C-alpha cells in the first residue's frame, strides 16, 4: 500500500516535471519572440544610423555594409543637439527639484499633522492625478505668456512640477506616515522644531522614496512634448523631443540621419533607465516605497 502510494507519487512527480520543462521551454519561446519585437525597432534605429539612405532603401534589414559613421558624427558635431540636451537636462532637473521639495513639505503635514480640512485639501491634490493635463493646455499657455515665461525654462518646469504634485504627494504621504512617532518625540525632546524634524530626520530617512519620486518626475519631464511644443518657439530653447520632431520633418528624406538623431536622443533615457529602473518600478508599484 505504502509503496504503491510512493510509486504513484513519484510517477506524478516525474510527469509534472516533464510538463514543467515543456512549459518552461514554451514560456521561453514566447518571451524571446516578444523580446525581439521590443528590441527590433530600437536596433533598426541604431543600425540604420550607420547606413546611408541607399543601403536603407536597398535592404532595410541587412547589417550596414560598409558601416558609415558620418550620420552620428554630424549630429554629435552639431551645436543644436547639445543645446537641446542641455535644455532637457536643465528643465528636468528644475522640475524634479521643485516638485520633490514642494510635495515633501505638503506630504509631511498631510501625513503627520491633523488639522481641519486636511482630507479635503489632500483630495483636491489627488484629483489632479485623475485629469488629462491637455485639459489645461490652452489657459496654461495664456498664463505662461502673461507671466512672461514663454521661451523660458521655468515656463515648462513650473507647470510640469505642478502637474507632478498629485502623484508625488500620493507616494510620499504613506512613507512619511510610516516613520515612527517616537522619533519625532525624541527630536522634540532634543529641541527640534517641526521643520528641524522634517529637514534633519524625516528627509534623510525618506531618501529612497524621494529618489523614487524624483526619478518619476525626471522621466515625465524628459519625455514631455505638448507643453514644450506650446511654450518654446525659439530653437535655442528646444528640448530633445522638440528638436527630434523638427529634425525629422526638416530632413524627412534623409532617413538614416533621422535614425542616428533618434538613437542619440534615446541613449540618455536608456542609460537613466538602467541606473534608476528600481526606483521607477517601485514608484509605479509601491515596492520599496513601503520601506
Amino acid at each position, binding site marked *: 500500500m505504502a509503496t504503491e502510494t510512493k510509486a504513484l507519487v513519484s510517477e506524478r512527480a516525474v510527469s509534472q516535471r516533464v510538463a514543467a520543462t515543456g512549459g518552461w521551454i514554451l514560456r521561453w519561446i514566447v518571451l524571446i519572440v516578444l523580446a525581439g519585437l521590443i528590441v527590433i525597432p530600437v536596433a533598426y534605429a541604431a543600425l540604420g544610423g550607420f547606413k546611408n539612405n541607399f543601403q536603407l532603401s536597398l535592404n532595410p534589414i541587412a547589417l550596414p555594409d560598409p558601416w558609415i559613421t558620418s550620420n552620428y558624427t554630424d549630429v554629435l558635431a552639431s551645436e543644436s543637439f547639445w543645446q537641446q540636451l542641455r535644455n532637457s537636462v536643465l528643465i528636468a532637473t528644475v522640475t524634479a527639484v521643485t516638485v520633490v521639495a514642494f510635495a515633501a513639505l505638503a506630504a509631511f503635514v498631510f501625513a503627520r499633522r491633523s488639522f481641519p480640512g486636511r482630507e479635503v485639501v489632500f483630495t483636491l491634490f489627488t484629483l489632479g492625478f485623475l485629469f488629462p*493635463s491637455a485639459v489645461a493646455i490652452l489657459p496654461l499657455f495664456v498664463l505662461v505668456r502673461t507671466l512672461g515665461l514663454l521661451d523660458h525654462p521655468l515656463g515648462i518646469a513650473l507647470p510640469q512640477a505642478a502637474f507632478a504634485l498629485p502623484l508625488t504627494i500620493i507616494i510620499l504621504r504613506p512613507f512619511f506616515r510610516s516613520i515612527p512617532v517616537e522619533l519625532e518625540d525624541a527630536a522634540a*525632546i532634543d529641541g527640534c522644531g517641526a521643520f528641524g524634524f522634517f529637514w534633519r530626520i524625516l528627509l534623510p530617512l525618506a531618501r529612497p522614496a524621494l529618489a523614487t519620486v524624483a526619478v518619476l518626475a525626471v522621466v515625465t519631464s524628459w519625455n514631455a512634448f505638448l507643453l514644450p511644443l506650446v511654450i518654446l518657439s525659439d530653437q535655442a530653447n528646444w528640448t530633445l523631443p522638440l528638436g527630434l520632431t523638427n529634425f525629422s520633418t526638416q530632413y524627412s528624406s534623409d532617413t538614416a540621419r533621422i535614425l542616428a538623431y533618434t538613437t542619440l536622443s534615446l541613449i540618455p533615457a536608456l542609460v537613466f533607465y538602467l541606473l534608476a529602473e528600481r526606483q521607477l518600478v517601485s514608484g509605479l508599484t509601491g515596492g520599496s516605497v513601503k520601506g
Partner: protein
Amino acid sequence: MTQRTERAGIAPARSRWPGLASIGLFLLPALVLYGVFVLIPIVQAAQFSLYKWNGLTPLTDFIGLANYQRALADPVFVKAVTHNALIIVLSLTTQIPFSLGIALLLNRRFPGRAIFRLLFFAPYVIAEVIAGVVWRLILQPGGLAEGGLNVVGLDSLYQPWLADPDTVLWALFVIISWKYFGFHMIILLAGLQGIPRELEEAAAIDGASRRQAIRYVTLPLLGPTIRVSVFLSIIGALQLFDLVWVTTGGGPADASNTMASYLVDRGFERFQLGYGSAISVILFVIALFVALAYQHFVMRRDLDGALTGAG
C-alpha cells in the same frame, strides 16, 4: 513605565509647536504652485470656452454655449471622440489581457526572468515622440516592415498602414501597445507578487489545475490591481496626443485625430482659443465621468494600494 511618563510629558511640548500657522507654511508652496498652474487654468478653460477668442484680443466676444454646439456638430470632433473610444476598447480587450498573460509568465522564478522584465518595461521610458518617429520610419514604404515582409516573401501583405484611413488607428494601437504593455505588466506583476504563493499551492492540493488556480484564485485576488491598470489605461488613452502628432498629425483625412490632437490643432494652429477651450472642457467632463465611475465601482483604496503599496 518611565517611557510612558516621558511621552506624556512631551504631549504639551508638541502642541506648543506652532500649530496651524506652521502647517500653513508647509502647505503654502505646493498650494500656490498647484493653484496657479493646475486649478486656475482648468477653471479658466471653462471661462474661455464661452467666448469667441483668438488669444490676442481682449476677451469680450461672449457667445454662450455656441462653441459647444459647434463642437458637437463637427463630424471631425465626433470622430475624434470615437477614435479615443476605440483605443480604450482595444487597450482593455487586447493590451491588458496580453500584459496580464506576460505578467503570469514572469511571475515564476526562472533563469532570465529579470532580463525579460527589464526589456519589456524599457519602452516605457522611451518618449512617445521617439517611439513615434522610429515607428513612422519602420512603417513607411521602403521601411523595415516592408523590407522584412519582402524577405519572407509576404510583401503582398505590406501596405502603408499609417497612410490609410482604415488602418491608421490600428497601426497607432500597435505602437501604443509596444510602448505601454510593459508598464501594465510591471503593475500587474507587482500585484501578483502580493498574492501569497500558499493560496495557489492550496488550490493545487485540492486538485485544481494550474489554469483553474489562476482563474479561481489568482485573478480574483488580482482584481484591484487589474482595475488600476484599466483606469490608468483609460486616462492614458483619453489624453493620447504626442504619438498621434508625431506619426500622423491626426491624418490622413482626420482618421487618427484624438480629442487632444483636435484641441491643439484648433487652439494653437488655428488660434481658436475659445473653441479649443470648449473641447478641453468636454475632455475634462469625460475624464471626470470616468473618475467618478471609477470611484463608485472601484473605490479609492485600490489606487492608493497600487501606487503606494499601502494596500
